[in-house]
């Protein structure tokens, strides 16, 4: 029986009020167990990154309004903490890996200095301990010459190496939850494999809970057991990877899957895409947000909002699942 490491209850994010209100994330709930990886997929702009930022409490400077029943890390609700208390937890119990490893490092300090700073801040370790922890974390992500890597500036490393160093920085304090926001999107194929291997290692060896945010279902399939499909700030389907790939229940999930090009299959007459466009956050359709693009939509889809329990199994938010 594994324990719940990250638990998010009814998280909502919006900008503005009244008629100006833009709902970015709408009552999203999920949990990730220790030693488990969960994927969060969806098209660009559907609220994936917003969700991650809100969990870390990083939206306060943007003017976005955040409300949730609870955001728990190892059973401790961090949404009620003050900013100062929350800062004690960020980097130590929950860490984030960013999409652009090139810009997520400060260009004026070496990689080693930046990793050391995180460690010193959270553990108060002396110089010797810090150096040891820093080199260990660089070695743990697979750098053979950790000392040399530590002395380089971020831009001297390739994109893949930078992302590995980013993982080293995120894991130097051994957090129990890691949020990886599109960690492989900016990388080439072989670097991607390396990064995914490292996430897998963290999950298995350190029992880290991983929330992997991606628009790429194939990436999610490689690392995660569970997957959530998000659209316009709502979770449409929450299931395990295997069932999603073998039998997607929500028409939108099925649409996403059909967009993945397959090697070896006969060339389709045209490249697949989901018809229509993602609606604006300020002008969301009533009822199911996907209804205007859905081939199976009927009148109740346009009138009332299907909850994740619409099929009575808590898997898919659809009145007419596949």
């Amino acid at each position, binding site marked *: 029986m594994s324990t719940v490491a990250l638990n998010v209850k009814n998280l909502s994010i919006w900008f503005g009020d009244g008629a100006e209100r833009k709902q970015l994330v709408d009552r999203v709930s999920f949990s990730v167990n220790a030693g488990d990886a969960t994927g969060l997929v969806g098209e660009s702009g559907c609220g994936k990154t917003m969700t991650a930022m809100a969990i*870390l409490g*990083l939206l306060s400077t943007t003017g976005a309004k955040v409300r949730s029943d609870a955001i728990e890390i190892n059973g401790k609700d961090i949404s009620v903490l003050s*900013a*100062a208390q*929350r*800062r*004690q*937890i*960020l*980097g*130590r119990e929950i*860490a*984030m890996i*960013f999409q*652009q490893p090139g*810009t*997520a*490092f*400060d*260009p*004026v*300090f070496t990689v080693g*200095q930046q990793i050391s*700073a*995180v460690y010193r*801040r*959270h553990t108060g370790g002396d110089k010797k301990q810090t150096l040891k922890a820093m080199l260990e974390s660089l070695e743990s992500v697979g750098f053979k010459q950790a000392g040399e890597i530590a002395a380089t*500036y971020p*831009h*001297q490393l390739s994109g893949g190496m930078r992302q590995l160093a980013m993982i080293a*920085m995120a894991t130097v304090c051994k957090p129990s939850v890691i949020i990886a926001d599109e960690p492989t999107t900016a990388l080439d194929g072989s670097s991607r494999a390396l990064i995914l291997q490292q996430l897998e290692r963290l999950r298995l060896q350190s029992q880290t809970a991983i929330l992997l945010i991606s628009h790429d279902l194939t990436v999610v399939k490689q690392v995660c057991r569970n997957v959530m499909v998000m659209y316009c700030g709502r979770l449409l389907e929450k299931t395990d990877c295997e069932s999603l790939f073998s039998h997607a229940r929500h028409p939108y999930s099925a649409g996403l899957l059909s967009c993945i090009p397959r090697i070896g299959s006969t060339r389709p007459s045209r490249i697949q895409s989901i018809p229509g466009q993602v609606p604006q956050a300020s002008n969301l359709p009533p009822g199911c947000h996907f209804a205007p693009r859905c081939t199976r939509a009927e009148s109740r889809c346009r009138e009332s909002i299907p909850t994740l329990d619409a099929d009575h199994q808590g898997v898919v938010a659809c009145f007419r699942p596949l």
Partner: protein
Amino acid sequence: MMWDTWQRFKTDRYGMGGLVVVILFLIIALLVWSGLLGQGWSEVSGNGWERASVTHWFGTNRLGQDIFQRTLFGTATAFEIGLTVTICSAILGTLMGALAGWYRDSWLDEVILWLKGVLDSIPFYLFAAAVAFALKGSAWAMHLAMIITFWTTTARIIRGEVIRIKQREFIEAARAIGLPDLKIMIRHVLPNTFHVLLVQSTIVFVAAINTEVILSFLGLGIQDGVSWGLMLAESSEEVLAGNFGNFIAAGASLFILLMGFNLLADALQDALDTRRLGK
């Protein structure tokens, strides 16, 4: 960081040349301040307008004062004005610019921008004259006038840099590891503005020395002592009469020091900019 920067700086021959020149002038200035050099700047030690000789290396001026001694003393004046104005306006400008940039579009930003706009709209020499008059001939009137007007440019540049840096992902990353705002500012924002501040400071240093020349010429500058500016002001009459002592001594000193300073700044900028390192 300091050691790396020095290692990179050492390989730049022009920069090292500039550093040597600046250090030589600085030594002269230090010796003047400690009373070992240039103490005879006001003493009448010969006839008016003597040519260069063994006793008067650069000749004498109209009153018979030794131009070499006056040049040495002028070095100390130049450093005193340059350093005071540069350091004070850099601190003030960085503080104001960083506050305005970090709290962009807040009331604080508005106030600072308004203040900057007001100061920039006053003609500089008129303002300097007003400050000099208000302080009734104080030796610091010129410094104050320059600091009050020079910080605005630094503030504008730093504000822009801070706004640009604040949007970079590593600031978000610093928040994500739990760093409070003030520490993010000191550790990640300001170090990233440092190379810009350095270049701006060399411009201010050069501008301060240049402005001193003009203000001294107008009688608003140095009250007690001598500067290259005063010497150039004197030479404006002498050159027509064929006496180039003041003009060459002050002009050449000014040129060599400013050139050395610019080379130094240029090399420092390259050495500090870690992004320019090879892959």
